[in-house]
């Protein structure tokens, strides 16, 4: 479980987040949604410590993220996996070297054990026989899957994904979503996902946080969206007239 309290962030004059308080649950896919520029990436980067907030607290279970000693921070980092929008793979390393990197850095495993582990996670993301390929030889969806494999290779307890299915066709996007959901439930991970893909929201939205104007505009789960009367979330999810009509039909209005 991750708790954030009163997070504020601005870049110079520009205020991006104005006091965000929320909880992300364990074993659940927690979604941060909002329009482009709403501050989703900034919030995610604050959660993993890539940005320093101007104010506020981040709690990983019972540890306050900004008050850890160097050693504690290092240990916590080993429990964090993150998937970046473009995969963020090393171009000059092949798939196996990319996935093995966290193992090389943080474990005392033997070479054979590491290779086994790499095979295992590749199987998990439904990729096999690509160990010796370079990122440039893979499609965008495959790179994302390698990114996921690298993110989960150390068995993380916290998984962060920045727009995991942007730039993918709807079918591949669903496969990726399902994969993240499976991993989250199977290993009981706290997963936080940034997205503006409405399919993801309705498929895997266990806990949804809508950011608007630097504040939390709405919070709930995917079933509550359908019946919600809150104009902000309705306006955001059912953005097109077609979806609006569909919603009315479904609710019998």
């Amino acid at each position, binding site marked *: 479980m991750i708790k954030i309290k009163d997070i504020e962030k601005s870049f110079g004059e520009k205020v991006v987040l104005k006091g965000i308080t929320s909880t992300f649950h364990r074993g659940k896919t927690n979604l941060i949604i909002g329009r482009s520029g709403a501050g989703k990436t900034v919030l995610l980067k604050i959660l993993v410590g890539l940005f320093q907030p101007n104010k506020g607290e981040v709690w990983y279970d019972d540890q306050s993220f900004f008050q850890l000693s160097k050693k504690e921070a*290092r240990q916590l*980092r080993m429990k964090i996996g993150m998937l970046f929008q473009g995969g963020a793979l090393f171009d000059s390393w092949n798939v196996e070297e990319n996935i093995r990197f*966290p193992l090389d850095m943080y474990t005392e495993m033997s070479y054979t054990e590491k290779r086994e582990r790499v095979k295992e996670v590749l199987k998990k993301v439904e990729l096999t026989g690509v160990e010796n390929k370079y990122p440039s030889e893979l499609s965008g969806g495959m790179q994302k899957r390698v990114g996921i494999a690298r993110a989960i290779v150390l068995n993380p307890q916290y998984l*962060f994904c920045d727009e995991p299915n942007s730039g993918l066709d709807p079918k591949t996007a669903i496969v990726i979503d399902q994969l993240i959901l499976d991993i989250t439930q199977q290993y009981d991970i706290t997963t936080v996902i940034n997205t503006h893909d409405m399919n993801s929201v309705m498929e895997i939205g266990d806990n949804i946080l809508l950011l608007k104007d630097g504040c939390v505009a709405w919070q709930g789960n995917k079933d509550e969206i359908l019946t919600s009367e809150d104009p902000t979330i309705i306006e955001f999810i059912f953005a097109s007239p077609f979806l609006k009509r569909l919603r009315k039909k479904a609710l019998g209005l």
Partner: protein
Amino acid sequence: MINTIAYKLFYQLGQWVLWMRQVFSKPEKINVYWRETIRQMNDLGVGSLPVVFIISIFFGAVTTVQFYYQISGTFVPNYYIGYIVRDMTIIELAPTFTCMLLAGKVGSNIAAEIGGMRQKEIIDAMDVMGVNTAAFLVLPRLIAAVFMIPLLVILAAAISILGGYFASVWGNLFTVSEFIQGLHSFFIPYNVFIMLVKAFTFAFLLTTISAYQGYFVKSGSIELGKASTNAVVLSDVAILVADYIIALVMT
């Protein structure tokens, strides 16, 4: 105007110093760093051989021909050409020109490579894993450079002198024995030491400056291009300034 430029300069310098401290912190895992270092040595050393070879052989040849042109018809004996070519090559041409050449080749490459990693969030990804990215990206390249570049400079000096030898043989400018006599005359081993000090210093400067430009690049391909250009220009300026300081201090 002057104020803002001075402010920027000192800001950058301060950031560079702080960043260098991060670069020189203890590596997390020696063998991962070692693997990278070997790779970089290969890229940098072997990759730069052809260009260093070609440039050096012509430099030596041109210097020899030019000196012959200046000296012929004067009372300066011909064998002086061998002597002057040797010393100029060792003290100045080999270290300075080779390193300026490498700033263009290796420096721009380092800036573009590390800058690309910043822009594609690869550095962020490693930061999240808890890797000391400044150290991991810079130390292997730096070690490779301060080891390989002096070797390349020694090679450049030798090839330059060889270039001079060929120019005198094929050009029939003067006799080979005169050139060789010149090479043997007034040899001061200390000059070789100066050459190595220069090569080492320049290697350090061009690697750290170029890596710094890449590490702090902003987003966008225009910025990446700028970082790459800045890496070369700033490295060249730093090399020339350092060249001057070393010349003052050591001779």
